[in-house]
């Protein structure tokens, strides 16, 4: 079964450092998303991406965040200068169409720990 792949599974970084979280969406999907989940809390929308541009973003997704699809297969989330409160599980997701009948397909996540 096709899956969304995220790397690394766990990243530890020092406060103030830049991190790039990587995702390989399902190959025929056109819509890409990043969500995050602070430990024990609900999953929060960060950003959606379609046709090489951001289609929607939340209040969390400030100037410290950026996304990119550098080639035909990868989708990345960059945090420019990490803060302690950026520590969370970051999930990438993709979908074939808006509201496709099976919803999104999520990756297994990258656990980011900022120290």
């Amino acid at each position, binding site marked *: 079964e096709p899956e969304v792949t995220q790397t690394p599974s766990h990243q530890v970084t020092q406060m103030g450092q830049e991190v790039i979280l990587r995702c390989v969406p399902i190959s025929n999907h056109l819509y890409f*998303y990043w969500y995050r989940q602070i430990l024990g809390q609900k999953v929060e929308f960060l950003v*959606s991406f379609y046709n090489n541009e951001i289609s929607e973003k939340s209040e969390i997704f400030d100037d410290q965040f950026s996304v990119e699809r550098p080639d035909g297969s990868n989708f990345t989330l960059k945090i420019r200068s990490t803060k302690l409160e950026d520590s969370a599980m970051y999930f990438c997701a993709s979908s074939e169409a808006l509201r496709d009948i099976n919803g*999104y397909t999520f990756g297994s996540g990258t656990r980011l720990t900022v120290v």
Partner: protein
Amino acid sequence: GESVGLHLPTLSVQEGDNSIINCAYSNSASDYFIWYKQESGKGPQFIIDIRSNMDKRQGQRVTVLLNKTVKHLSLQIAATQPGDSAVYFCAENIGTSYDKVIFGPGTSLSVIP
């Protein structure tokens, strides 16, 4: 404002019994609802969805009920199995914002063998 919430944060069920997980939503503009299952260390996994023009939808061992009058959503799992132990999230998608899914806080389901 937009919010999706759950009545019960934790639920323990005997194996073989039916489980019911409840969810309340407050945004009347929501017109598409999804239930996700999240096992430890994994991302949310789609279980079942329902559009606002329906009040019931059935899948394999799962049924989602939607009551728009009281803005209530429930997930019923028949003959609960140990593999059903996970955190369950209801989520909503709003017609004016097709791109994002708003998750509720989650209910932890524990199945007692």
